[in-house]
């Protein structure tokens, strides 16, 4: 079996925000699936978040269409990067998708409800493995993220999934 996911992504630019082994695993698998990865700072300031997205756009020479956000449970995504990404997509007249990586119980479902829209597909992975975990769990996190970010999951919107039964199962 291949060690990484297939080329599910068609060379999108993806801004990754946040830290942790799970976040790194997601960035790794998204890159393996075909994404160009840029990093953004954790911030609760919408203008700073928009600036980070626009810097990634300029540096890559292509529009940003994926945003991965791990707030560490502080849930600033909807307030800052969510608003910034929505503004950016309006300005560029593009569609995008945002993936929240949160610990179990961080209230990602509430954020998803405010993020989903005609131009923005939003999904979440809520798992203890976002912070850290065994290698196979981190890989699974990255592989699930790659599927959710891909056009193969274009009909998946507002979904909130865990990795295994140790992540309290969520209605997605």
């Amino acid at each position, binding site marked *: *079996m*291949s060690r990484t*996911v*297939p*080329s*599910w992504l*068609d060379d999108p630019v993806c801004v990754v925000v946040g830290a942790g082994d799970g976040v790194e695993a997601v960035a790794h698998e998204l890159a393996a699936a075909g994404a160009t990865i840029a990093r953004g700072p954790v911030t609760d300031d919408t203008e700073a978040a928009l600036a980070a997205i626009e810097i990634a756009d300029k540096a890559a020479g292509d529009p940003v269409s994926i945003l991965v956000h791990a707030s560490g449970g502080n849930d600033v995504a909807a307030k800052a990067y969510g608003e910034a990404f929505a503004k950016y997509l309006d300005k560029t007249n593009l569609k995008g998708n945002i993936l929240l990586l949160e610990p179990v119980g961080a209230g990602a479902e509430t954020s998803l409800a405010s993020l*989903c*829209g*005609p131009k*923005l*597909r*939003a999904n979440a992975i809520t798992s203890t493995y976002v912070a850290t975990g065994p290698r*196979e*769990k981190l*890989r*699974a996190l990255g*592989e*699930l993220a*790659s*599927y959710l970010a*891909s*056009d*193969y*999951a*274009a*009909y*998946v*919107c*507002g*979904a909130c*999934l*865990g*990795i*295994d*039964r140790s992540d309290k*199962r*969520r*209605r*997605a």
Partner: protein
Amino acid sequence: MSEHVLKLDPPAFGPERNFLPDAIYSEDTVMILSEGSESAQAIADAFTSVGASIVSIGKDMAAARRVSGIAEGHGQASLVATYRSDVTNVFDEVTETLGTIDHCIIVNVETDIATPFMEAFAAEKPAKGKARSAVAVTGAGKADAFLAAWPGGSRMNVVEASLDSGKNGPVGRAGGTFELGWAVAFLCSPFAREIDGQILKLDGGAS
């Protein structure tokens, strides 16, 4: 290619390349319990296009053949039976002709009908080194019943699918049956081998 394959809606968008690597399921046998719906046919297509053999259990033989026909269209082996078939006989015949069943897919079938097949699948000794999985495709609100009824023996996930409701959600369109097929094939794939006990709502964000 059989008429059954041609009946499926082709993807109207998205990458043209294959979703999963060619032949990723070439050593796998997939049991599909269904009423022979287009959703079940699309799921069969997602598996057989990358090498799987199919055991189609239908409410009747006509329903079972609508799904097995997809396998035949891809040149893959298949076997048919009905809900009323003797479960032990079905599993014995599968073992003789196709080998052990690796994946159990239940498509909009009530738990009381599916339970004997789920229990037989759970009791079967897995082939050495092969990862087994199960996915139930249900309507809204039925996922928990399947997770509670699952007898174990493999990982199990549920897709709560509502392909029509997406027209009223953020996605703004109905879902394609092929998208349901991709979701199920992903959840059974080696790329999801750690994912267990999860519910994927496939409704275009309508709920």
